[in-house]
């Protein structure tokens, strides 16, 4: 074998090795880039979940609050009416009209009391407050989910960035079109400030 042949073989072998290396770096980076894009989409999924869920939860809590309030108001209203008509009837015990009104007012009061009892049975202690506690819990949990999704995104971005910046990938990543990816960052610096709680 001539020296030229050996030289060609060695050069050819080197080219094959480098080509295999570049292909494996390329494929690795493709996978990692898709991983962080996927993680970004997962953050969006969680944001969407918050967007869809929280207003509905708030509405249902509002509903529970309003229901509890209306029932109490109805009882008070009925009691006041019943009290007023019975006062009137007491002033004039012989008036059949007044006595009829007392009966009507009693029926209304009985009805509203019934609703109050039904409410009390459905929610043993009238639980608009428990609804709100649950809402508070769900709000906290939702933000935890979002934070986890963002952390996962950060992890994937960091994995990608590191694998394109270590040797030997750093020599090829730019050429192959793999730019650096950016981590989660707060856009509005005011959001970094402490939140003032005020009642």
């Amino acid at each position: 074998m001539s020296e030229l042949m050996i030289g060609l073989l060695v050069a050819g072998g080197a080219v094959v090795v480098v080509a295999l290396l570049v292909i494996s770096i390329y494929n690795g980076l493709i996978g990692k880039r898709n991983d962080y894009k996927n993680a970004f989409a997962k953050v969006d999924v969680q944001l969407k979940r918050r967007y869809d869920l929280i207003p509905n939860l708030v509405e249902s809590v509002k509903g529970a609050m309003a229901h509890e309030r209306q029932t109490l108001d109805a009882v008070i209203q009925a009691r006041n009416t019943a009290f007023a008509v019975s006062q009137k009837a007491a002033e004039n015990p012989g008036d059949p009209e007044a006595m009829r009104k007392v009966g009507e007012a009693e029926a209304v009061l009985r009805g509203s009391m019934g609703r109050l009892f039904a409410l009390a049975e459905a929610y043993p202690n009238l639980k608009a407050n428990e609804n709100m506690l649950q809402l508070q819990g769900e709000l906290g949990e939702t933000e935890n989910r979002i934070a986890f999704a963002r952390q996962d995104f950060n992890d994937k971005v960091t994995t990608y960035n590191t694998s394109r910046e270590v040797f030997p990938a750093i020599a090829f990543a730019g050429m192959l079109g793999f730019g650096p990816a950016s981590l989660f960052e707060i856009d509005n610096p005011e959001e970094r400030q402490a939140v003032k709680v005020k009642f």
Partner: protein
Amino acid sequence: MLPLWFWSRALRLRRLIQDLPTSKARGVFIGLVELKGTAEIEEPLTSYLAETACVQFGWSVSEEWRRVVTYTVTDKDGNSRTETRVESGWTTVASGGLASPFHLVDDTGSILVRPEGATIEGRSVFSETVTAFSDLYYGKGPPGGVVDSTGRRMFTESAVPLHAPVFVVGKARQREDVVAAEIAADPSAPMFLISTRSEEQVAGGHGWTIWLTGLLVLALPAGGWAIDRNQMGPADWPDLLPAGWFSLGASGVLLVAWLWQVFNSMTDLRNRVRQASSLVDIQLKRRNDLIPELVRVVEAARAHEAGAQQALAALRANAAAEQLTGLSGGIMGMAEAYPDLKANGNFLSLQKELADTEQRIAMARDYLNDAITNANTRAERFPEGWVASLAGLRRLPLLVTEGIERQPVQVNLAR
């Protein structure tokens, strides 16, 4: 080649362990984390041999054998003769083990660890060598035996005992059942280790590997050459000189491999610092999004309660005075069924969430400071500081508070 591979692997893992800041169980984020705590479990496993309560155990039984081997050698002159040699050894005849998901508990909380796929470094809890007269021999060992058995069996067991301090490095991911993190095997993780040794001991173990394999890399080529040379005949001192050249070449290879590993680990560390900084932002964002909403909910709860309590007060005040109907008693009972001031619960829950939120932020900041400190230490050390600047790792200031935030806080409830 093999020692070189072990050398660079040990170097990489030791640097990774040293560079990873230790997270707290409650501040665990999704990604590669390092944790220290104790192994706890509700229903502990009982190890097979030592019968201790544990979260993981692995046992093995090996049996000794000894045999005389007869073989024929033919010397240079063509004469054959028979020689004998005694061979002996141990063969594993039975082994087993079990690992259960457990909780790693530290001073801030606990986190679930799923040990499948982990490298587990247990503590030796059982080691006995017995003869067939012992109950143990067949009691916990298999029936039968190996060929040419000497009748001695060695029973060994290692375990991660309950309440034992453990050091865990692995990837945290989100649990599927609840909104919390767990540590589990992940193909992309550079390591998943559950060890009963401390961080220093694990890093130190890799340190020994680095020294030993490094020496091997230096000595093997020269040694190989020297043996090669010796077979040609007795060598004089000057003839051994090329062995030195071989060692010099090997140290050049080691230097390049060291540069490579250090450069890559510095890049990793630099990105870890950036990630840590972003993790702080995530917690700040969480606070910014969450707390105002919670405050609004608590406000609404308070307003609702005020209204409801007023209505009830009116009912209570009048019900007693009215002799109207039998319903009055019902109204009274209804009113009494209302416990006082339930919005208190909402305030309590808000206070807890506030404290938890600040704790999360504090832990993220701690993590960032630890990562920066590790990076600064690397950047200042000689000679790796040079590689650090090559990898774009610069000295960074730590996060510190300034001015008024350092003063003690005056609690004023009068306003």
